[in-house]
């Protein structure tokens, strides 16, 4: 007979749903970049409408957390886990919003000619998604070391963003007619850079669960 079996069962369900949510958002980010690269407006529309599913999942997990607090009265580490979940799903949902934003930019761009080949933006997306997946694994596995390492990798994404920004700035100065298109690409890069920042927030929550202290990394 496992003591607190109901609490552990419901917590496992919540954690599984957090992973599902993370999976949906990861896919949304990658597909949004694919849509941008290929000027695939149908795919972009799918990502925009698919964001509702991510939002619904977030509110569903939030409701389950509230019920768990009300019915099982978690304290200490148990409570930190639930609080962390409430924060993590907010961060993941915002990353989902970024994917939606990138898809909307694709729709706005339409069939305008590309400013430049997309090389660094897809790299940023892959890095941010990889960090997101591993941060959620670190949460499930309660791995503070993994969480700290992921935070350090945010510098990679920041560096790529700076590169893209400077490159697009140069292009805009050379050719003012591309300012509108280039600005949209800067927005895309900005959304990906913010995605990685949100992943570091997730990692800080992982460390909080394990140590009981919030560390700004």
């Amino acid at each position, binding site marked *: *007979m*496992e*003591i*607190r*079996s*109901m609490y552990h069962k419901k917590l496992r369900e919540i954690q599984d749903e957090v992973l599902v949510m993370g999976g949906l958002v990861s896919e949304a980010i990658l597909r949004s970049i694919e849509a941008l690269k290929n000027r695939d407006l149908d795919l972009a529309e799918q990502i925009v409408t698919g964001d509702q599913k991510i939002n619904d999942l977030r509110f569903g997990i939030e409701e389950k957390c*509230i*019920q768990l607090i*009300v*019915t*099982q*009265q978690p304290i200490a580490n148990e409570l930190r886990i639930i609080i962390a979940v409430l924060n993590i799903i907010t961060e993941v949902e915002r990353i989902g919003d970024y994917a939606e934003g990138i898809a909307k930019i694709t729709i706005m761009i339409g069939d305008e000619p590309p400013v430049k080949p997309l090389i660094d933006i897809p790299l940023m997306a892959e890095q941010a998604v990889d960090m997101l997946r591993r941060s959620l694994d670190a949460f499930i596995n309660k791995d503070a070391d993994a969480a700290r390492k992921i935070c350090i990798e945010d510098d990679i994404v920041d560096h790529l963003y700076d590169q893209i920004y400077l490159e697009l700035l140069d292009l805009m100065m050379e050719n003012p007619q591309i300012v509108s298109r280039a600005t949209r690409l800067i927005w895309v890069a900005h959304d990906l850079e913010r995605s990685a920042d949100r992943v570091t927030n997730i990692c800080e929550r992982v460390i909080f669960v394990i140590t009981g202290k919030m560390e700004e990394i």
Partner: protein
Amino acid sequence: MDDITLQTPERIKLETEAVNLYYGSFQALRNVTLGIRECAITAIIGPSGCGKSTLLRLFNRMNDLIPSVRVEGKVLLSGTSIYDKDRDVVELRKKVGMVFQKPNPFPMNVYDNIAIGPRHHGIKHEAELAGIVEQCLREVTLWEEVKDKLKQSALDLSAGQQQLLCIARALAVEPEVILMDESCSALDPESTLKIEELMRDLVCKYTIVIVTHNMEQAARVSDMAAFMMMEQDKAGVLVEYAPTSQIFSNPKDKRTEDYISGRFG
């Protein structure tokens, strides 16, 4: 009032319809209508004196032991009236077992505490009785602790073990319903948690109704919660009956909200 009483009859194990209960001229319960779900844990909560235990004791007619008691309205077990004149009360109490606040093992050994019920109901074969004793003690997770002490006095067990023994004793006569009247309130936290886990294990086979003053326990362990309170004339009324998650996160009645948030009680 929640529409739980409107569910199809086969999912409701115990019911009251407009029940009034009097001790002489004093009305202890007023117009209580309630449908207890089969194979669920229902918690009855409310301030002291509001009629929780009186309501619980309706279901196995323990109130009959009080000479001046009078019951109006219907009380049904699986759709048939508990209070019919020709109802066999002994048979009723076999189907609707009870565990009390203070552990009350009989002053006999562990084995006989469990075997006495089945023996009384006609099982004479010792091998069969031994099987029942072991099965019931296993069901309450007490077997490993007492298997070498079956012939020792039950009164030598700890309070938590005695209460588990009392639950096993109730299970030995194959009840359909188990009533638990504050049966953890005299126990330490570890024993309380064990009994709460046992309730969750047992609910797949039995309908369980608990009375508890411990709201956290009610929230942890029950599927449905019934909040009662006393009106000005001290009659107990049912204020709200709904899924536990709703009662404790979004009660519909302000009196329920006030009680669970500690504003009175």
